[in-house]
């Protein structure tokens, strides 16, 4: 049966499997886990090592690696090229909209003119008859 850290009386082996989770705050552990750790030298020793590990990992955050010279320039150039591509795309799509709009307007105008001519012919035929 799996160990229920909230209700069971934990054994040392069960606690050991939990210590890495509580390394950054044993105060968040259930009471029975804390009580065990308070009275168990082996678990305390392991908890100390986990804390040492976490301290070392936190300290790595302050370390900054220097990328090879020229990398920053390459990133900026890459962004610039992407920006230009995007500008060209939006210009082309703007032209496409204008082109399609122009065709649509011309078609509508031709249609309207045709309708006027047909209506004129129909009126003339009606008058003649």
């Amino acid at each position, binding site marked *: 049966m799996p160990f229920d850290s909230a209700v069971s009386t934990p054994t040392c082996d069960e606690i050991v499997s939990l210590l890495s989770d509580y390394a950054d705050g044993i105060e968040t552990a259930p009471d029975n886990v804390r009580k065990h750790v308070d009275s168990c030298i082996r678990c305390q020793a392991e908890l100390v090592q986990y804390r040492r590990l*976490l301290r070392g990992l936190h300290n790595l*955050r302050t370390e900054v690696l220097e*990328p090879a010279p020229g990398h920053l320039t390459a990133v900026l150039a*890459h962004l610039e090229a992407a920006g230009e591509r995007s500008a060209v795309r939006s210009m082309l799509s703007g032209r496409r909209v204008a082109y399609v709009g122009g065709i649509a307007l011309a078609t509508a105008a031709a249609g309207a003119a045709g309708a006027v001519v047909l209506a004129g012919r129909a009126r003339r035929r009606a008058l003649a008859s």
Partner: protein
Amino acid sequence: MTPDLADRVTAAKAGDRSAFDDLVRATHADAYTLAFRLVGNEEDSRDVVQEAYLRAYKSLGKFREDAAFSTWLYRIVANCSSTALSKRSRHRHDVLDEEAIIEDTRVENDPVAHNEALAERDRLTAALEDLPDALRSVVVLRDVYDLPHEAIAAELGISEANAKVRLHRARRKLRETLYPLRGEDQAHAV
């Protein structure tokens, strides 16, 4: 977020390209460091950083500014690294870069303490590099960069429960490697 960066973010969101370039200059080395820690070699790190900034540039409008710009960027770097790692695992003929040297930028006054700290950090860095990619990503993002489980899970494409399990395993493996308790060192030697 520092006031300068907040100002640059606002300007970049309004379309000021030079403001985004300033953000790149301010965060570039940090982004590279994170990428290097996640993917473990210089060439992939460079590609990851380039891709991450491109994605950041394209999606800057979605950045809500409720977190620091750097934290938002770290999430993007983590996501790009995850993609790079999964590509790499599909073409697995890479070797660990044993030539990678972590440069120390701090100056300490006490040479003995300084050397000990360096040695300890080198051991930690080596142990991190030896972890499987899936474990290393989670422990670096959580314990070095302090990202919440939820963000880690989202960027790596795994469940939050899985992220916690991986963190547990990664910490345990690192602890056993670096600080073995009595009995564990013999067990490892067998």
